[in-house]
């Protein structure tokens, strides 16, 4: 190929890039529109008063239910979430009950065979009191934790912690 650009090639490139520019101008809004959910910032971040005096949070995990307002596109609703709240070495932690194996729901001492653990009935996954998965059981990771706050002697639960 010679170094000089032929007239035909110049016209091909010019027309091609003009067409590409116009086509991109047409397609860009549509593609941006389609991928918007992937680019949107996650919602949430509100802390909810779960109506539990701090004095009632003890070393023994207790399940606390609270309502979160969720917006799903044009549909919004109140979702009831559960957290296992306990004091671990003086620090309050709120564990999500969603098993890290395959998403079933764990409960504290749900199986009398395994005292002092969170137990998942689906595949017998177990976690210690602070949510750490017990090796040799299916879950690969510790239970997720909710962010917590204390205000006026009451417990507030926020979004899941990002790990």
């Amino acid at each position, binding site marked *: 190929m010679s170094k000089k650009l032929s007239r035909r090639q110049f016209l091909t490139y010019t027309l091609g890039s003009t067409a590409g520019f116009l086509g991109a101008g047409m*397609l860009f*809004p*549509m593609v941006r*529109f389609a991928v918007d959910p992937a680019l949107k910032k996650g919602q949430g971040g509100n802390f909810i008063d779960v109506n539990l005096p701090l004095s009632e949070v003890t070393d023994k995990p207790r399940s606390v239910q609270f309502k979160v307002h969720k917006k799903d596109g*044009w549909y919004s609703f109140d979702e009831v979430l559960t957290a296992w709240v306990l004091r671990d070495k003086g620090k309050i932690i709120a564990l999500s009950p969603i098993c890290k194996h395959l998403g079933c729901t764990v409960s504290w001492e749900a199986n009398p065979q395994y005292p002092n653990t969170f137990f998942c009935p689906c595949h017998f996954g177990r976690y210690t009191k602070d949510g750490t998965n017990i090796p040799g059981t299916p879950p690969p990771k510790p239970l997720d934790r909710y962010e917590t706050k204390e205000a006026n002697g009451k417990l507030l639960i926020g979004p899941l912690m990002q790990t």
Partner: protein
Amino acid sequence: MLRAIYDWVDERLDITPLWRDVADHEVPEHVNPAHHFSAFIYCFGGLTFFVVVIQILSGMFLAMYYVPDIINAHASVKFLQNEVAMGAIVRGMHHWGASVAIVMLFLHTLRVFFTGSYKHPREFNWVVGMLIFFVMLGLGFTGYLLPWDNKAYFATKVGVQIAASVPYLGPYIATFLQGGDIVGAQTIARFFALHVFFFPAALLALLGAHFILIRRQGISGPL
């Protein structure tokens, strides 16, 4: 790079004759605006097709958010228009494009009429074109209901009542269009089905016929 990919595919599938057959054809001087600017009137058919392509594309993307249901239709349109990025643009393309398509189609029809291009041997292609015209009107009519706002609702009520005034068959046509006794849940479901499946399929088939005929018969001669 692109050239190499093309050659690799072409060597195996021999695709060059396919697009050559579509792309390589004489454009007579009297329809080329580069020769006579007034020949731009011959562009309206192609422009109609271009707008139809935009309608199909933008419609496909709108369908990612829209639901055809009396409770959620309007809420989903409001959401995709106001809360999704570029929603106003994508919906705007579909909304205004619908009108532009009808205008372009009408200008194309006028050009064909006043240049006498509908005459033998092209009379059958005029008939195909008229069928395309009715399908486009059908697309406009069914699409108008889908946002499920007041304008949509009452426009459809009026349209259905016009259809109901046909002698003898009217009431049956109205019931068929509504899918029941009223413009309601069943109407929006079937208008959606007509708008995104039945009419586009008919339109593509007719456009195929329209283009094959114009290639077989060639562009009509100068005035």
